């Protein structure tokens, strides 16, 4: 009894390192109900043979949480940036193309180095300093309304979708990107974080900061966490504008 097995066709951009030229490889993966891009990549890892029967190396990619909260498995799937763990095969048209994100240095195949995003978080001081030489005691209370706004902003997983889709983010610009900017809004909203509000605003008023935003608004379209990034940016535009006037007229 021979049952014809349904397969899924993949087209994957392979690249050994950032120096070598990329090439495409195709794979046919046996179909299983409910499979996603990660499980397909696992299948390829078990049996790295291309669609025309050639033995090849395993495809390198990053993944960790498998539930769209860590951001590690972000890649460009069928031309759009997203997480591969939540990219269900049933919802994708074939052949399914997998490419690494284009805005970060390539490590290998689908694996990139998102260091620039973490550097951006450091640059904009995306934290609340509470360490001191003595106990600072309790901070002020957070209103329910602030909690709600803050909660949404805190869901960012630094996945890189927003900057991958941003036309202003590339190696010709030092733009910190929507994710980092949105964190400035988060920490400027927090009653304890507010105490360093102007310090944070200063970090985004230099070149590569908020003024590099060109309002294409792609970030908010592609953010898997549905973070209102363009609202964050416009809110920071308001904060920096007011602070800018203050600097002119109060000094």
């Amino acid at each position, binding site marked *: 009894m021979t049952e014809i097995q349904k397969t899924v066709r993949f087209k994957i951009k392979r690249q050994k390192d950032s120096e070598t030229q990329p090439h495409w490889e195709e794979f046919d993966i046996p179909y299983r109900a409910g499979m996603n891009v990660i499980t397909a990549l696992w299948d390829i890892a078990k049996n790295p043979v291309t669609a025309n029967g050639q033995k090849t190396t395993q495809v390198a990619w990053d993944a960790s949480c498998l539930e769209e909260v860590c951001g590690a498995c972000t890649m460009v799937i069928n031309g759009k940036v997203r997480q591969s763990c939540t990219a269900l095969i049933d919802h994708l048209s074939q052949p399914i193309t997998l490419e690494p994100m284009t805005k970060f240095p390539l490590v290998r195949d689908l694996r990139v180095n998102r260091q620039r995003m973490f550097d951006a978080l450091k640059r904009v001081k995306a934290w609340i300093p509470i360490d001191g030489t003595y106990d600072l005691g309790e901070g002020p209370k957070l209103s329910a309304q602030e909690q709600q706004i803050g909660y949404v902003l805190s869901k960012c997983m630094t996945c890189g979708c927003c900057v991958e889709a941003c036309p202003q983010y590339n190696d010709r610009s030092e733009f910190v990107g929507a994710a980092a900017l949105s964190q400035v809004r988060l920490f400027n909203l927090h009653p304890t974080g507010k105490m360093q509000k102007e310090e944070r605003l200063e970090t985004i008023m230099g070149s590569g900061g908020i003024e590099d935003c060109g*309002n*294409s608004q792609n970030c908010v379209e592609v953010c898997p966490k549905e973070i209102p990034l363009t609202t964050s940016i416009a809110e920071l535009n308001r904060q*920096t504008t007011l602070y800018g006037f203050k600097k002119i007229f109060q000094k």
Partner: protein
Amino acid sequence: MRAVKKWLQENNFFIRKLHSLSGVVPLGAFLIEHLITNSFAKFGPEVYNQKIEWFQSLPYLYALEYGFIFIPILFHALLGFVFLWAWSDNSARYPYGRNWMYTLQRASGMIVFVFIAYHVWEFRFETQLTGAPVNFDLVANSLSNPLIFYFYVLGITLTVFHFANGLWGFCVHWGITVGPRAQKLSGFLFLALGLVLVYIGLDALWAFR
């Protein structure tokens, strides 16, 4: 070049804000005034020529021209070209409405620069060199060439687009419209303004036919 880069970096915030502001005042304000003034052509050559004479008789004319028009245009346009450096277009891959507007804003800016350069050369500087009188006939003559006429149709339309969409960006950039609802409403408002201005501009253009 290095010095320019350093200056841009050190004063990034205020330069960008000034770039945005210069597009609205004086340039946008002047655009509205200019389109409306041109509409006097609808009342015939005599009325139109009177208006031109009135403008030419203004005191401090050169200061007005250079201070409120030529220098701001050059400032706005040249900085605009500098900012284009960071542009990596992806509107085909991410074809969202706002992304198209983002791309069109930049594309229109470049075309409008060429258009304005031609327009100012033809009716302001060339005439100054040759001593030819600036009047209805001069414009009508130039526009009798269909190629130039349709270049003006394109130029006026794109200039108004760049201005109206620029106003939308201005409101975001200065933190006036923050949420999605406000940004959507302002979009409709500036679309309406743009349509009105294109109508006024093209209607005047046709008066020279």
